């Protein structure tokens, strides 16, 4: 995402957290926020550059950052520390290993704040482990979710059913791989066989804007969409909520990257 000679059709880490912070501030009316951040450079950086500025932009000043440690088996202390002061929103910024424990700890500790987690937590195994504690939790998706009925997604589902190897998880990462190939194929078709060079391919992606982006928001590869991440061509996210153990779309695209720090 930091390379000027690459293109990336979905925002992932760069898109997720600004969008979630933006949604929390605009739609969940976050006034006080607790953020659980993994105690690693990526997490700290994500908080500093992709979360705090977005909340600040929307006037949320009461933000409590809590660093969670990978050598610590239990997340309840981290969740309790983030909930000190009674925030109305808790944001978990971490990998999937913390999803279910954070959801469970919030309920076990009796915390009322709305919990927001990254889209990786939508893995059915994690939701099953979290059980009823997952209900009411918000999360994102870089793509129209599987089962959403979107025409691109229906094509993807059919193709995977017919040609995909067994046991491939139908998640965002599989969607990213499939969608990227479709986008690349479209670009190659336009360029034409015999004219494919590094320069011509990059030119095709970078010319114009709002190109169709398979299963997700249209992309614009102008190198300036996300400050400091020139490869990102789209950072918009769908927002979902867990209902009865299953992710359900809230609707609309959210992009918080206009508010992040350069």
């Amino acid at each position, binding site marked *: 995402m930091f390379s000027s000679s690459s293109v990336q059709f979905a925002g992932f880490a760069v898109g997720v957290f600004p969008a979630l912070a933006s949604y929390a501030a605009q739609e969940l009316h976050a006034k006080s926020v607790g953020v659980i951040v993994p105690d690693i450079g990526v997490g700290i950086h994500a908080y500093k550059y992709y979360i705090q500025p977005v909340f600040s932009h929307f006037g949320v000043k009461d933000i409590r950052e809590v660093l969670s440690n990978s050598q610590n088996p239990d997340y309840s202390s981290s969740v309790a520390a983030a909930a000190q002061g009674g925030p109305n929103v808790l944001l978990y910024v971490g990998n999937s290993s913390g*999803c279910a424990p954070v959801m469970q700890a919030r309920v076990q*500790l009796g915390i009322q704040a709305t919990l927001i987690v990254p889209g990786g937590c939508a893995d059915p195994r994690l939701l099953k482990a979290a059980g009823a504690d997952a209900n009411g939790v918000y999360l994102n998706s870089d793509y129209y979710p599987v089962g959403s009925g979107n025409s691109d997604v229906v094509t993807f589902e059919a193709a995977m059913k017919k040609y995909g190897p067994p046991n491939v998880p139908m998640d965002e990462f599989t969607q990213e791989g499939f969608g990227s190939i479709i986008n690349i194929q479209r670009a190659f078709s336009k360029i034409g066989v015999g004219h494919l060079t590094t320069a011509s391919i990059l030119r095709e992606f970078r010319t114009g804007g709002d190109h169709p982006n398979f299963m997700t928001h249209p992309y614009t590869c102008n190198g300036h969409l996300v400050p400091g991440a020139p490869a990102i061509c789209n950072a918009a996210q769908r927002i979902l909520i867990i209902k009865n153990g299953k992710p359900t779309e809230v609707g609309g695209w959210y992009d918080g990257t206009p508010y992040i720090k350069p």
Partner: protein
Amino acid sequence: VSTIVFLLLGLGSGSAFALLGLGLILEYRSSGVVNFAHGAIAMYITYVYVELRDNGELVFPVLGFNHINLSAAGLGFIASAGISLVYAAVLGLLIYLLVFRPLRHWPALARIAASVGLMLALQAIAVLNFGTATFSVDPILPVSSLQIGSLRVPLDQVYLAGIAVAISGLLAVVYRRTRFGIATTAAAEDEVAASLAGLSPSRIAALNWVIASVLAGAAGILIAPITTLSPATYTLFIVPVLGAALLGRFRSFTVTTAVGLALGMLASVLLELQAAHTWLPSNGTQEGLPFLLILFVMYVGGRALPERGAIIDRRLPSVGSPARILRSCVVSLAVGAAAVLLLPGGYRAGLISSLVAACVCMSFVVLTGYLGQVSLAQLTFAGIGGFTLGHLSVSLGIGFPFAPILAGLLTVPAGLLVGLPALRVRGVNLAVVTLAAAAAVDALLFNGGWFSGGFSGQQVPSPHIGGLNLGIAAATDTGYPRAAFGLVALVVLVLLGVLVARLRGSPAGRQFLAVRSNERAAASIGINVAGAKLLAFGMSAFIAGVGGALIGYQQRVLTGDSFDVFTSLSFLAMAYIGGIGRISGAVAAGMLLAPGGLAVTIGDHFFALSNYQLLIGGVGLIFMVIRHPNGLVPGGLTWAGLEQRFRPSAAAPAAPAPPRVMTAEPTRTAPHRAEDSQ
């Protein structure tokens, strides 16, 4: 009130540390093994339990015959846990009989290497059988909570702590009051005396390994609902667990349990304080806590830490005696350059990875091979070198070749700092210190933002001399990787080899061997043991730092992931398999075993072996430790060896026999105490 809540919330993590620490003590007391694989055993047994409970499948660590279905609907808790613990008992017995019993008379390094091999193998088997996805486990203990102020405290954590305390008390009674416990203590104190008294140290050790593995399995199953299960998570707990066991002097169950619980509670309160007071340092402090504890124990009570009274009748791996250095350099450069220039892209990339890894492995030759000191922090030194190179190049504009040399030199203070505890401790205790130091640096520096470049990592510009780009890639060059960088890596490796070879033949090198052979004897003939140790730590840090700089040039953007503490363990494994006492061993390790290296690339291309690399590495390490402790290159790659092998008629040059006192070839000697041989 709030602090009480956080103390109670820390019981979950603390119980995990305590429960795992108890098993670690048993393994050490019975066989002198600081088992780095203890967390991995807990992890594996927990997977077995989860598969039984969810799918009714009994999973075996044998690829190709890996499961039996006992019930399509899954088994209940009692059946699943019962079968899993029996499984753990069998696994523990097999591990002892097949891995650690053959090593019972070997020095600490061999057992550490074997435990690292076991850890890698168990992780690899878990990945192959269960994937890398994270599992969450259904609750076992009653899910209820206690309201304190505005927060509720989950009571399952309190129950878990109660279980840890109860098991600790039970073990304390058993090992103090019963004949078996007293026999274990006797065997730990003095195996010879125990044998003379009619006890069987091997049988006692086997039984203790069974108990330790059952404890590991029980700990894994109990803590699974409060944490998550993946091949990596449980293994990470080993650092705080080692801290607890070390403070319990690898002897006291009650102290270990108390320290484990205290560590968890302290970390929890620290979280509360950091969240409330933003001026408090936060980044890495929780992970750094066990290291500070370990360091404190080592400095305050290092000499008083117990060493087991084991019989040691084998020595460290053999040490090479480099000869005809110039000829070796010329041939290495010629063959290496030809390979770099002739190999196609993918294989050239593999060769470059091998050359770079061999540089890091070279640092083990000095420290572990020549001096006999076990360090699990070499890749951490490489990381310091790599990130420092980035800062020197980007911020200060220092270019090649000064920047990598300076990066290596700036890594030396870190080596000296980590080496300081070596003045007071050795063997397994030193391994623990270096592991903790690596974990602390990982937490405080590599993942801390400014030093490691934060989210986007630390940029490392390509090396240039004059207008010549020596980088691995260039904007105007479509070929990747570029041969120019391969030649740079080759030259650096050869220069480091010359440095190590010169060191081996120097007075300092001979002092290293004397210290390795017997510290007390070395001191008695006037060798400055402390100075020799610090010199070796400094030199090995320099070599690793230069290796890290090469990694920087190779990867162009460095992140902390490249140098994490468990990758460091893999590098020790590689160096040991290659031949940790020899320069050619380091080269062999790089060529044959480096991740993404030449042999791995070839193996993957022809046999699709990449998925099995970790497993092959782990099992290979155990096999090599037991069967070929001198490594893949025990001496065959010396000129004399090659001449003897291929030109039997060639008369060996007359050379004076090396002074026997300085050689360290493996010989069967009369039994002597462990601390004198390391």
